[in-house]
């Protein structure tokens, strides 16, 4: 059963509002008004400019195993000219959320990986109306570009959890390391 209802107010595309948060190196722009720096993460909605939203995350079946593929989110913004003060720039945090009540529940979170603009001609008006396609990638893309040479536990062997904790030192994106549990005592006398 296909249900078609307006999704405005139920799905949103958001980016951090750096102007409300204070100066953010690499993201804030000259001329922006700045907050006092005490405000937490503030997200600004972009859904009103967006048209189609695609999110694709998951694994690639690679023979016997699963290879984690880079998660991507793409969407198109109307009347946004990336070359003339558009909303986005590479590396910018963007997320898609479902709004359950007033609570945003992320569907995807990542950083802008690609911005491509198109300027189709409106033959009836003779105007160029810019359309910008934004591609956002998740942390897998960061991990695939992070070099790592070996993993050498001092004892020559380690648990899976210890290995992940060791690899975390190389990561440039947050990792939730599986808990390093103490050995479970199964007998004592």
């Amino acid at each position, binding site marked *: 059963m296909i249900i078609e209802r307006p999704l405005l107010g139920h799905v949103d595309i958001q980016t951090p509002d750096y102007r409300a948060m204070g100066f953010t190196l690499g993201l804030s722009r000259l001329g922006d008004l700045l907050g006092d720096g005490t405000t937490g993460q503030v997200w600004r909605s972009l859904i009103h400019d967006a*048209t189609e939203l695609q999110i694709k995350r998951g694994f690639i079946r690679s*023979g016997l195993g699963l290879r984690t593929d880079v998660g991507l989110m793409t969407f198109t913004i109307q009347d946004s000219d990336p070359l003339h003060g558009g909303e986005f720039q590479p590396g910018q945090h963007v997320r898609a959320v*479902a709004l359950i009540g007033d609570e945003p*529940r992320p569907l*995807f979170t990542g950083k802008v990986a690609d911005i491509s603009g198109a300027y189709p001609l409106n033959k009836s008006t003779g105007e160029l109306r810019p359309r910008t396609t934004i591609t956002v990638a998740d942390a897998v893309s960061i991990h695939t570009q992070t070099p790592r040479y070996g993993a050498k536990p001092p004892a020559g062997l380690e648990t899976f959890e210890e290995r992940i904790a060791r690899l975390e030192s190389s990561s440039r994106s947050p990792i*939730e390391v599986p808990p390093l549990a103490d*050995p*479970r005592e*199964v007998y004592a*006398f």
Partner: protein
Amino acid sequence: MPTFDRPVGAATLRLIVNLAAQDTAANSSLVSWELQLICTNGSSWNANATAWSANIGGVGYSGGFTFDFRRTNTVVIASASTWLGHSPSGSLTINVSGWIAHTGTSAIGGPGSTDGNMALPSISRIPPAPTPLGIDQVTARSLRYRFASAGDGGSAIVRWEVQYASNAAFTAAQTITSNGTSTVAGLTPGQQYWFRARGVNGVGAGAWSGASSAVTVLDAPVTTSWAQSGADLIATWTPPAPATGLTGYRFQVATDTAFVAIVAAFTVGPTTTTAVATGLPGGRLYYVRVAALTAQPSEWSAAVPAVLLVLASGDLDRWSRYGVPPAGLVYYTGEGIRRGVVGGKQGLWLESYSTGRVVVAPGMIGIQRSIPTTPGRAYTIRLTLARSADARAHTYQLSAPGISGDPVTLNTDAATPLPPLTWVATSTASTVRVLLAEALDVPDATTPVERVVVTDIRITEAAGYYAARLRGTVYESNLANHFDLACNSVGATWYADRNNLTRFSLPGNALPVSAIFSDRALEGALNYVGIDAGYDTRSMVNVLEATNHGIGDDGLADDPTETVENPSSISLYGPRKDKIDLNLYSLPPYDAAFRDRLADILAASFEPARLIGSVTWNAQQDMTAAAALELTQRCTVQFRDTVQDSQLIGLEHTITPTRWLVTARFIKL
């Protein structure tokens, strides 16, 4: 009347000696004497004086005399008397002599002399004090006193007297007759007694000898109890009465009535009336005796029935003996182990003794216990041993299924941890052992052969969800491939979640079901609108080539490759080959990990399986559920009569201003 004559020519020189009197008090005799010259020829005479001398018991006399035998036959030359002293024993023998010079006559001539010895009657006295020979044969209530005679004082001994008392002044002394050896009974235990002796003869009682003294020993304690308490034997006794001078008790335990084989002996203080014998081998009869100590010990306490020491094993927590003990080796308890407390800790005692020569091979005996284990999981046992210093067995080791620990020699009785031993369980139960790890040749009966206590036993299951271990690697790549390598090795997955946080997930079959997709409108299920299903042939593999990345001894890459096949699958479907990179540690106790992982992968993929690959669902049916979907979740997918246990491996959201479709991709668990 003793007369000593000697002829001188025609005459005779005569010395007459008589005992005139005796003075007993002065121990001397009065001797009278007379020197005569006798001649009967009726003619000899000399008006001139002739010299003479006499000696009576050392007293000398001399002078001159004249004689005329024409009118007499006897001329008294001289006479006198003298006191002579007797010897201390009262006897006296004297030498007497008389002499005259030449008489000046032809018929008598001269000179002449006479002499002789004379024993005077002895003077009797009281006997001298005897000589003490000492006191012996001391018991609690009797003593033996001996003395020797020093003489009878010149009079026959009428009797000997011995006097004893409990004081040196002999106040209230008892006097008995004796023949020189007297055993006095009826004395008080622990009391000092003085003894002396004297003789009595016709004159009277002699002087007392010097005093000798001795102390009677105490009565033997009375053993009132000899019984087992726990693993110990305890004796109690009542003190002797009186207990004068008591300094303590001597306590002995033996395995024979003659107390030749003494197994415990020590001294306790005078206020103690209990002694505990510990650490004795079980299954034997033990005898006890106690003596009270003063200057010398009392007699031993009377025999009491022996006690058979039965050591209770206690709650052994399902530990038991391993192996059959060789002939001559006897365990202290029926179980061969007993539970006890050592240094405040619970422990298991392994104790045995030999009744003769015993030969034990390494690993022949020990203790063991089975514990529940999960196949494939790694376990580690740790424990501590402490050896009794007198035990013959020194070396022990741990053992677990398929692996043995290094032997450790316990040189002292200090607690010594054995090296931890790790093994990977292959069944639902694993038996761990503590083994005697040395060859023993005990030549004769020895106690103890084994006496070691095991404490601090800990068995742990290895940390982490996965039993396998990853080996070090010099794999040079990116972080994502390192994540893949680690996850492929153990069956985990990794992904970036909705918040862009990188997470690692357990294998799907270890997770709870998070969502149900169904082709029908069911309560609680997500009613999908499209499905992709069929035979999954892409992941079918019957020839698997696996590379196990690692580091060699030279520090360089050590990446052995192993190929496993499923021949029946190959014959049916032809060879379907694939490769996989792993990073598994494959030395003991994890030596089976690499092989098992390959077998698991091949077993899951050697034949094509029906697969519901994906479903498409309208998220506007339940946007809360849509927002909750996440990669790696376990899902149930229903399609007609097929119910597939699945893991979510792909999520696609296609959102337009009025439509939100979700495509979920699955693998079959």
